[in-house]
C-alpha cells in the first residue's frame, strides 16, 4: 500500500491522504482531486459472464496506490475503485475491480492491477476490456511492469517473486526464491537487478539473468516498511530508521542512516528530495544529496493529514502455521509400540510352549 509516489514526469511527489490526492512540489502541497468516487455503470462496461454479479464497490474510499506515466495518473482505492486522470487531474475513466486492488501500473496503452485474491488484470486505457493475466494462490503484495513492457513481476504472501512474460503472462519466465515470509515490496533497479524486502526482515538484491540472490542484508531494526530507489541510492525503511545504500555494480553499501521520531508509514524519493510520511501523521521533506538526508522541513500548503487512513493490511500478518499433527504421530508411535510388545509377548509365549513340549518329549 503506497500512498507516497514520486512522479518523475513532473518532478513532484503525489500523496494520497484519505480520498484526497495531493501534489507536493518545492515543499508546497496542493490538493488535486478527490478519488474513490464510485462510477455509474454504463453500457461500456464489460458484459458480465452468466451467473456472475457485476463487481460492486465496498468499504471506505481511501487511496491505496498511485502510478504514473507521461500523460496519465492511475489511482486505486480501498473500495475497489480504479481510476485514471489526465495531467490536469480531470477524471478520464473509472471502474470497479473484482477485488480490492493491491498494486497498479500504467502505460500509455494499458493499466495493470494486482488484487487481494492474487490475480492480475490488464485494462485498456479507458478501463474497459479487462483481461485476466495471471493468478497467484495468495495475495499479490507488489507488482512491476518492466519499462520495456516485456515482463510483469509479481510478489506474494507465499514468499515468491514471479517473473512472467507480458502480455502473455501465462508463460512464467522464472521465479526468484529466497524469502521465507511474505514479499512486501520489489523495485527494479536495472534491467538485470531487482531489490526485494520481505516479512523475514531481509533485503535481497537479485541477479535476474541467473535468478539468484547476489546480496542479502538483514534488517537493522525488525520489520521493513518500504523501500525506494533514486539511482544510485536505495532507501530502506523500518519503523524508525531510514537506511540509505549506494548501489555500485551489484553491491550495496550503506552510506547513511536516519532515525525518526515517529513510526514511518511511507517514503518516496527523487534525486534531490526525500518525502517521508510518519505516524502522527506528519509529512516531512528532506534534502537528499550524496546519499545523505538532511535539512528537514515541514510541508506548506493546505493539507489535511487527519484524513489519513491507516490500516494494517491482513496480508502483512505473518504466516502462523497450524500445528502439525503431533498428536497423530504420538498416537501412531504408541500404537506401533503396543503392537510390537504384543508380538514379542506372543512370540515369547510360543517359545515357552515349544520349550515345554521339548522337555516333555525328552522327559
Amino acid at each position, binding site marked *: 500500500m503506497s500512498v507516497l509516489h514520486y512522479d518523475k514526469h513532473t518532478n513532484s511527489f503525489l500523496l494520497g491522504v484519505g480520498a484526497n490526492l495531493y501534489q507536493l512540489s518545492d515543499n508546497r502541497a496542493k490538493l488535486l482531486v478527490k478519488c474513490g468516487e464510485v462510477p455509474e455503470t454504463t453500457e461500456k462496461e464489460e458484459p458480465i459472464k452468466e451467473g456472475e454479479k457485476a463487481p460492486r464497490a465496498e468499504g471506505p474510499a481511501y487511496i491505496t496506490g498511485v502510478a504514473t506515466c507521461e500523460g496519465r495518473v492511475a489511482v486505486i482505492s480501498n473500495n475497489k475503485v480504479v481510476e485514471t486522470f489526465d495531467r490536469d487531474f480531470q477524471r478520464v475513466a473509472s471502474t470497479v475491480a473484482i477485488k480490492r486492488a493491491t498494486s497498479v501500473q500504467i502505460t500509455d496503452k494499458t493499466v495493470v492491477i494486482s488484487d487481494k485474491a492474487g490475480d492480475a488484470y490488464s485494462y485498456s486505457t479507458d478501463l474497459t476490456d479487462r483481461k485476466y493475466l495471471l493468478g497467484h*494462490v495468495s495475495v499479490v503484495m507488489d507488482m512491476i511492469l518492466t519499462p520495456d513492457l516485456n515482463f510483469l513481476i509479481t510478489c506474494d504472501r507465499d514468499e515468491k517473486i514471479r517473473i512472467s*512474460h507480458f502480455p502473455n503472462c501465462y*508463460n512464467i519466465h522464472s521465479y526468484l526464491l529466497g524469502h521465507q515470509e511474505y514479499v512486501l515490496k520489489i523495485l527494479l533497479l536495472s534491467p538485470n537487478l531487482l531489490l526485494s524486502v520481505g516479512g523475514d526482515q531481509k533485503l535481497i538484491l537479485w541477479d535476474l539473468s541467473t535468478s539468484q540472490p547476489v546480496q542479502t542484508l538483514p534488517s537493522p531494526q525488525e520489520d521493513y516498511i518500504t523501500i525506494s530507489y533514486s539511482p544510485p541510492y536505495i532507501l530502506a525503511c523500518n519503523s524508525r530508521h531510514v537506511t540509505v545504500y549506494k548501489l555500485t555494480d551489484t553491491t550495496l553499501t550503506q552510506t547513511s542512516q536516519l532515525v525518526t521520531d515517529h513510526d514511518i508509514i511511507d517514503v518516496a524519493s527523487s534525486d534531490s528530495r526525500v518525502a517521508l510520511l510518519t505516524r502522527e501523521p506528519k509529512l516531512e521533506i528532506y534534502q537528499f544529496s550524496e546519499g545523505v538526508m538532511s535539512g528537514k522541513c515541514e510541508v506548506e500548503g493546505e493539507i489535511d493529514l487527519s484524513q489519513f487512513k491507516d490500516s494494517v493490511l491482513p496480508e502483512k500478518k505473518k504466516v502462523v502455521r497450524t500445528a502439525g499433527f503431533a498428536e497423530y504421530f504420538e498416537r501412531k508411535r504408541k500404537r506401533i509400540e503396543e503392537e510390537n510388545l504384543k508380538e514379542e509377548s506372543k512370540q515369547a509365549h510360543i517359545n515357552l510352549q515349544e520349550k515345554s513340549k521339548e522337555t516333555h518329549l525328552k522327559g
Partner: protein
Amino acid sequence: MTKVKYPQKRNYRQRAHSNPLSDHSFDYPVSPDVMDWTKLYPRFKPENEVKFCDIGCGYGGLLVTLSPMFPETYMVGFEIRVKVSDYVNDRFLALRQDNEVYHNAGVIRTNAMKYLPNFFRKGQLEKMFILYPDPHFKKCKHKWRIVSEGLLAEYAYVLKVGGLVYTVSDVKEVHDWMVEHFTNFPLFERYDPPAEDKAAQVLIGSTEEGKKVLRNKGQSWTAIFKRVEDPHLVNCAGT
C-alpha cells in the same frame, strides 16, 4: 531389526477434503537447488532428477503401479493430507523392504497449489498426473480446484516442452472443466497418446479411487495434454 509392516488403511483415516489455501505446516525447500531428495530416495544421486509427479497421490496406487514400470525414473507424489501421505510413506517403506524395486518412488506431504516451483526447476518434469481430483462442487469452493487458469501457468512452468499431463475423473463435470481449461490454455494441447504410452494404460485401474469406480460399474473419463511452445513467442520470433 523390526520388520516394517504394511500399513492398514483403518489406522490412517482422514477427512477427504483439505483447504489448500490455508497455512498448514509443511516442509518445503526455499528453492529446488536446496532440496535434499535423498531423504525420500536413499539411492538418489546428484545427477538424478525427479521426472514424474502425481498431484494428489492419495493412497499411492498410481505410484505403486508406475514404479516398477519405469524403474530408472524417479517419481514423487504430492499429498496434502497428513495421514494419507503418512500411509503412502509407510507403504513404500514396507514395499522396499520386500522388493528390489520401489526405491524410485516416494511421497511428500505438501501443497501442490503453492509449492511446485519450490521443488521443481523450470521444465524439469516429463509427466504430471492429476487423477480423480477433488471436484469441490460448490461455486465458492471452485478456487480450491487443482485445475484453474492461474495454476495451469505453474504446471506449464515445471513441465518441459513436450511433457505430458494425464487427467482422469469419474465426475463428467470435472472432466469437462479440465478439458476446457487445458485446451483453452495457450501452452497446452489435447494429446492422443500412442499405444506404447505405458502410463496412459494404467490411469484408471491403478488407483484406489479408480478401482472403486470400476467396482461400482461407474465411468471414468481420461484426457491427456501436451505442453507446447508459447505461440505468442513463436509468432514474435517469426515477425
